[in-house]
């Protein structure tokens, strides 16, 4: 079982991100369950969503307590919410930011962690260029796929196309692929180094 927790704010497509990952995993022939932890449904409020992926049907309905991967769609949440609750020392993290992990105050986290598993990506900036809206979720899914290999990028592409009209889908796919390539490249480098 591979468990992902998404943190973001209302309006950033946090729930859609978990849904898309579940659709992609299903497309890859796996069982997947995505569900939101809704609070007050308003723009800007902290929102959490979850996705579980497994090779057998998923029955557990509790929230993801010990995530294998965290996707942080909004780094301002770092000061507001205990994002790393239950997080494992070999887990994966994707943070949407233009700042470094040091600047975000995450040096301690990185120090005790399996190398190369915590990455930052400028997903909002990439989304602005491709989609024209600060909607970082597709780009972050690209990063997650590259970092973890949990789903194939083609499956994310397909999930996005199933969800959105073609023009919007194309733009989001472009954002996802760009970030997928960036993160894949940086992983290659760290492996070669």
């Amino acid at each position, binding site marked *: 079982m591979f468990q992902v927790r998404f943190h973001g704010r209302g309006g950033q497509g946090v*729930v859609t991100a*978990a*849904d898309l990952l*579940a*659709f992609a995993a*299903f*497309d890859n022939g796996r*069982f*997947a*369950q*995505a*569900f*939101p*932890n*809704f609070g007050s*449904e308003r723009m800007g409020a902290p929102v*959490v969503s979850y996705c579980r992926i497994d090779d057998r*049907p*998923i*029955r*557990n*309905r*509790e*929230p993801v*307590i010990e995530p294998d991967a965290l996707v942080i769609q909004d780094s301002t949440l770092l000061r*507001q*919410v*205990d994002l790393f*609750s239950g997080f494992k020392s070999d887990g994966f993290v994707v943070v949407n930011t233009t700042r470094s992990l040091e600047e975000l105050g995450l040096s301690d986290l990185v120090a005790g962690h399996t190398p190369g598993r915590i990455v930052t990506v400028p997903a909002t900036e990439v989304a602005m260029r491709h989609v024209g809206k600060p909607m970082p979720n597709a780009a972050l899914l690209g990063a997650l796929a590259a970092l973890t290999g949990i789903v194939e990028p083609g499956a994310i592409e397909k999930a996005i196309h199933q969800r959105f009209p073609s023009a919007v889908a194309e733009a989001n796919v472009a954002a996802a692929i760009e970030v997928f390539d960036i993160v894949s490249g940086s992983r290659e480098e760290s492996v070669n180094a």
Partner: protein
Amino acid sequence: MLRQIEGSKAVGEAVRLARPQVICAYPISPQTHIVEYLSRLVKAGSLVGCEYLNVDSEFSAMSGAIGASATGARTYTATASQGLLYMVEAVYNASGLGLPIVMTVANRALGAPINIWNDQSDSMSQRDSGWLQLYAEDNQDAVDLHIQAFRIAEELSLPVMVCMDGFILTHAVEAVDLPTQEQIDAFLPAYEPRQVLDPAEPVSIGAMVGPEAFTEVRYLAHQQQMHALDLIPQVAAEYEAATGRAAGGLVSTYRTDDADTVVVALGSVVGTLKDTVDELRDEGRKVGVLAIKSYRPFPLQAIREAIGHIPTVVVLERAFAVGIGGIVAPEVRTALRGLDYRNYCVIAGLGGRPVLKTSLRDMIGKAESGTLAKLTFLDLNQELIDHELARMEAKRRSGPAAANIRRELGAGRGHL
């Protein structure tokens, strides 16, 4: 066909397969996605022969459903929480008049305090309304139960509520195997009403009944529900024959045969319980689960047959009756009357509080050792309660408890 789909949409697809003729609904979270989806299907012309009535309230929704059903139309609606309460007068009329309406209840807590999250207080408040109540474990179950509900309702001429946990199921995206239209057309023939308002053959429905016959009319309603105890497993068997999938029935058991302890529950928590039971079984502990699928009618005999041999029984409920405790637990005790066993009632998951495996493990451990309190509120924050009680003791005008407790928790600050 196996599809990855949101629970609400899967239920919308199940309702479409049942070919309803009237859908009359008013949106309320967490039911909204279901009726939105259906309204889109009707507008897009992919639900042929169905009229969608967008009404001004839940009271109108059920009243419209009653009118439509009385004219012989297959009728569907959905609601939740205070929406269900708002339609209650008409809910009782629908069953009293014997109209086979199918309604989804996307289970949500009842206020006050206002709370949009899941528990089963809403449908449990209607346990005596004369409707049948079926509870879904997952979204596959929700699909299968909705289709079966139309058959059961129309055979008995009684309305059926299909209860599914709000958000936990309605908003969950997971794989669901949707039957084909051909399979469902064979399983569910066109609605043939037992009574119908027809201008060509005028009748009155809803006559006033005085003391001379009221008891008899009510007794007949009870008889009909007792008849459902035979019909529900029969419909489940026919559904399996038609679709190849076992679903529905009165109860379902999981690893109960040699169990020393069994947890009885309704709805989506059954899945989490099954995972917990597997973990405990790996440790050599003999634990099982009984899911009550049909809560009304209440399957006394099926429960006794399924778990009568088990010495420790925990009933886990997502609602409770203020002033006494469990709602389901006393009914389970009725089913097990005269047997020598230990029983516990646990209230869990109120107002959206997650039911965690760690808490379930702890609960089962205490039940096994006989140290669980007879009535337990799972994961109760006793410190918070003591603090508020002290405040109430200290000062008569202590203020609204809900607001005080929220402030105490530092609501909105840093919790998942």
